């Protein structure tokens, strides 16, 4: 009786239409995303050459290269990892192997989970008031690294904890049964097994740190720097902010479009190749896991 609208033909028609809609939604999204990539690639390639990568900006940034921005972005990314990796890995090891379940652990987890969603510009405000003003580091590479380090800390911690949890309990039991204490078990058994997974999360975070704009705009970046930074208290240029300044602040926004796309391309290649490494490692891990 209630099958009247459910004849075989009607059901097959519905099936066809619905799957077609799903396929076209997915296809449309993929086409849009890839055409954006292609657009940046084709517009950027014209501007990128060896001099562009290795020289300083000239004529109030309307010509010349982006060397200081590349150096600044690399410095910020590496510096932020130097802060968030030890802290994040340490926190993850504590949560997965040392902590007893209880209010403290719950509070830490909740804090980490919520921090991951806090907008980056809020981290920028925090960095501005704590590192730049209270600690007196000023706008500097150091303030930027600290801010980005804190920004990436939740991501690093969460990914590392996930990787540690996926190492089977039997590994730890076996180590402990052989007479190892907990530190020995963690260092010699758990960490080697979990490290690739932990590093994957870290590399993804590194990619995000390299692409962040708002927090470093508030804490570390200057629009133009004629020199490379020679101490951690220098202001630096960065790729992401360079694109922003060229695209919004100059008198010749339209004339510098090639440089804007060129810089975007360099940034994109940097970020995507980092992420690609992480994605490949993770795919390998999933396939080759023996436990």
């Amino acid at each position: 009786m209630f099958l009247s609208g459910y004849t075989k033909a009607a059901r097959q028609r519905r099936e066809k239409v619905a799957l077609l809609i799903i396929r076209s939604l997915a296809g449309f999204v993929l086409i849009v995303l890839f055409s954006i990539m292609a657009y940046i690639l084709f517009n950027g390639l014209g501007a990128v050459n060896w001099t562009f990568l290795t020289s300083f900006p000239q004529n109030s940034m309307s010509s010349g290269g982006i060397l200081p921005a590349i150096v600044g972005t690399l410095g910020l990314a590496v510096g932020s990892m130097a802060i968030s990796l030890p802290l994040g890995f340490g926190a993850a090891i504590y949560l997965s192997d040392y902590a007893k379940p209880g209010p403290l652990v719950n509070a830490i987890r909740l804090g980490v989970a919520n921090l991951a969603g806090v907008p980056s510009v809020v981290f920028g405000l925090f960095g501005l008031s704590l590192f730049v003003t209270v600690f007196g580091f000023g706008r500097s590479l150091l303030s930027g690294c600290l801010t980005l380090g804190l920004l990436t800390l939740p991501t690093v911690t969460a990914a590392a904890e996930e990787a540690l949890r996926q190492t089977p309990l039997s590994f730890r039991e076996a180590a402990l049964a052989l007479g190892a204490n907990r530190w020995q078990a963690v260092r010699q058994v758990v960490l080697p097994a979990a490290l690739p997974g932990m590093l994957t999360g870290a590399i993804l975070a590194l990619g995000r740190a390299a692409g962040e704009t708002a927090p470093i705009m508030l804490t570390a970046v200057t629009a133009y720097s004629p020199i490379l930074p020679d101490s951690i208290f220098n202001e630096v240029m960065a790729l992401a902010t360079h694109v922003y300044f060229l695209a919004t602040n100059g008198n010749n926004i339209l004339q510098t479009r090639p440089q804007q796309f060129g810089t975007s391309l360099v940034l994109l290649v940097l970020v995507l190749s980092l992420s690609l490494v992480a994605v490949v490692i993770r795919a390998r891990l999933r396939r080759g896991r023996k436990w």
Partner: protein
Amino acid sequence: MATEPTVNPDKPFIPDDPKHPSSATSQESKKAPSYEPPKVFHLRPRLSPAEKGSRFFFLICAILAMGQMLLIMIFLFQEAAGLFFDRADSPGLSVFSFLFGLDWYPTYQDHAFGALALIIGSLSVTAISTLLAAPFGLGLAIYLACVAGRRTRELVKPAVELLAAVPSVVLGLIGMAVVAPFLQNVLGLSTGLNLLNASLILAIMATPTVASLGEDALTAVPHDIQDASYALGATKWETIWRVTTPAALGGLSTAVILGLGRALGETMVVLMIAGGAAQIPNSIFDAVRPLTSTLAAEMGETAVGSRHYQALFALGVVLFLMTLAFNLLALYLSKRWRRRR
């Protein structure tokens, strides 16, 4: 070693069980010192310095990771609170006039810090971009999890995750250089930098996030209930629509909320292409000035400790609380969903 009672709080590693036999034996030995348990059975050797040191170090890391949340809140709230108290040069604002004030004139002589237009700017951009990103993101998720072949999925899923990592400033540039002229020419607008443009680009940004998280949720649905559906003679689509999607609903809504949170907190896109006018939009072709872009645009030019500086931190608090609410909602939904499974 057995003569001194070991009161180390450490428990044996695996069983987190207060009634573990080891704790019982040590308490007994405390009460009756005449009895010495044989050394072989002593389950709690004194901790080596490396063990103690590592535990201490990891605990510090964990506390820092959480303390950061508290520090951020303290700093934001402390700087923001000043706005609402009187001081020598100007009277304090009321919370009501800050949240619901219509005028944002931070640099005028008679400055006005009404955040309503900025809050509505943020909400409108977020709402429209979510309306766009949710169907496309979820469609892509369903395609990847249920429709696509294994080959396609193994190729497309990592690509989608890669695209989630595209820096926002690059997408902002696309909005300025491609979408804005397009809107200007096709729709005959005076400027292409408006609510619609920003929402489109934000939707493009949030779609990979929604798709990736949504796919995870759909793949996590146990296979047996889908097999049962097929066994009852349901078609693929009927299985997807009646079985898989309802079972993954918690995870799918979490995916949408996290995508929404990403759009709400995104700064560079709205800073570059939302137009930047602090007004309540009448149509999707009006310029808006969301909270995030206000912070990024004005923070560099204010003197530390000025009224404007405090007002910007108050905006930061509003933004922080809004994203916190969405986060907690997402956490709550995913937890409830997990419990039901």
